[in-house]
């Protein structure tokens, strides 16, 4: 299912799978406790929008790929009462938190009666990036022909990443080997970026143009959190002066947790030709499986660089393309600092190791020769890990609205989450 060999060869399903529909629902900073704004309800709405956008008959859908986890840091607190009035509004599975703080395929099918022919249900663990890879391979392999691809996020009141083991005074179990230093979630990335700055003679301030550009692009994303709730640009001074969370990662380098849902409709290239929207062809997918050797489970900078470089090689070789064939890139940015590693791993448009921060001084906007993160990513629209994928589809379809890049959007790349262990996709306007 996952293509992890350094030289996996041309993808056998290149150009034979296409994205045709997009649906978004949300956003909100936190769940308001109502049934209509639950993560389950938003997931249904996003799926229905994607189906309508594609112009597909729901009865023709035979696949559903989703991430059953809907948070990384807002788990339902032990002992907290489950709102059974919300549960009762839906056709529930045997888990009362299904549709509230998690999401199963069974729950979706039970609550979308129009999905009468779904036979293939699969998990894409952790991220829309994984869901896309799984769905693309499944359609290519003939396990299904038309699939919803769904990723949703809930967020609860209270602070993110403060519950569970993080609230305990000591660490036990396997986590004692991976979390020995305490610290916030961005600690590992901050450590890598500190090493990066030393290795290449750079400074954190050089991230400012990327952050400004990302927020600006995010404000052009109508479905995004900042566009909807706090339409504020991010001047360089605001970014540079922000409080350190784990130096050199500051508040804005850490993405803002939100609630949102996104769904895509994937199908075969043959079926896509007759649908409502222009098909966006999947030219390849690739994944990383590097295991960090460092104590504490944090990959070193060099391990990140190796992983990103390997992913770049896999992506282009498997798509039959060269790095400079990329029209734009939408690699992951939550935490913002590792976007640098992802970008350099692509080795596109002359950006190699140690070059990204200097590249940010140039025109990286949607009007430039090689737009960097035209989606705005998590920096520009909140923590969902899916804006980048939506943007790739919409850019190539010519439906990115105010975000539409000036030059033709023929080939894009997106994926994540982390530099090590992520899943990545090459999208194209042509199947060839």
């Amino acid at each position, binding site marked *: 299912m996952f293509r992890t060999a350094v030289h996996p060869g041309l993808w056998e399903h290149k150009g034979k799978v296409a994205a045709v529909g997009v649906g978004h629902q949300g956003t909100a*900073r*936190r769940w308001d406790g109502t049934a209509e704004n639950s993560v389950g309800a938003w997931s249904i709405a996003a799926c229905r929008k994607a189906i309508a956008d594609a112009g597909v008959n729901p009865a023709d859908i035979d696949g559903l790929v989703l991430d059953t986890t809907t948070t990384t840091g807002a788990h339902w607190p032990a002992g907290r009462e489950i709102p059974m009035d919300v549960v009762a509004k839906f056709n529930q599975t045997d888990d009362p938190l299904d549709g509230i703080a998690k999401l199963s395929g069974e729950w979706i099918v039970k609550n979308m009666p129009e999905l009468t022919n779904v036979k293939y249900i699969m998990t894409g663990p952790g991220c829309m990036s994984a869901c896309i890879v799984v769905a693309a391979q499944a359609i290519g392999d003939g396990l299904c022909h038309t699939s919803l691809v769904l990723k949703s996020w809930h967020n609860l*009141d209270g602070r993110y990443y403060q519950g569970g083991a993080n609230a305990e005074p000591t660490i036990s179990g396997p986590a004692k080997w991976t979390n020995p230093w305490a610290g916030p979630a961005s600690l590992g990335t901050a450590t890598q970026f500190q090493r990066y700055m030393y290795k290449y003679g750079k400074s954190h301030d050089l991230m400012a143009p990327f952050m400004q550009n990302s927020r600006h692009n995010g404000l052009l994303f109508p479905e995004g959190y900042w566009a909807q*709730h*706090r339409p*504020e*640009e*991010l*001047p360089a*001074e*605001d*970014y540079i*002066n*922000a*409080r350190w969370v784990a130096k050199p990662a500051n*508040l804005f380098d850490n993405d803002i947790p939100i609630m949102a849902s996104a769904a895509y409709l994937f199908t075969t290239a043959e079926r896509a030709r007759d649908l409502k929207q222009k098909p966006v062809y999947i030219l390849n997918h690739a994944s990383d499986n590097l295991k960090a050797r460092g104590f504490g489970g944090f990959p070193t900078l060099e391990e990140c660089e190796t992983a990103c470089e390997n992913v770049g090689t896999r992506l282009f070789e498997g798509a039959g393309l060269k790095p400079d064939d990329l029209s734009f890139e939408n690699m992951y940015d939550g935490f913002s600092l590792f976007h640098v590693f992802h970008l350099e791993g692509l080795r596109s448009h002359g950006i190699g190791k140690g070059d990204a921060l200097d590249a940010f001084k140039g025109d990286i906007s949607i009007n430039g020769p090689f737009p960097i993160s035209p989606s705005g990513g998590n920096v520009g629209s909140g923590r969902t890990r899916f804006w980048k994928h939506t943007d790739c589809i919409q850019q190539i379809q010519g439906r990115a609205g105010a975000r539409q890049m000036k030059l033709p959007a023929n080939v894009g790349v997106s994926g994540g989450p982390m530099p090590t262990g992520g899943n990545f996709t090459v999208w194209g306007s042509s199947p060839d």
Partner: protein
Amino acid sequence: MELSGGRFLISFDIDGTLELGDPPGRITTEMVKRARDLGFLVGSCSDRSATSQKAIWERMNMEADFISLKHMLDDVKQRFDMHRYLHIGDRDLDQMFAEQAGFDFLWEHEAYTEPWLDWLNGAGGPIAGQP
């Protein structure tokens, strides 16, 4: 303006403290205006950017005497020579930065009764919630 009990400054955190914050807190715009009208210097010290804090004050239809990042509370103290400094917030970090900067500190849930109004009567002792 010098109040009867001295010169006082109140710093408000925003999210979880002011009613316009996200999440909303219990400190209303009316309370902030009342303090300002009575002669307190009022402003905000938040993790929000300066741009974002200015937008909040515009929504309150008020001009802040100061806007600062939360971890720069000590700069506020250096800018203004006052008899008392108070920061109000809802997070451990608010308390930590307030104490580091030499501010009195009130949790948001302790502050909505406006205990600073007692200062106008010359009540100079510890404020509610302080040891």
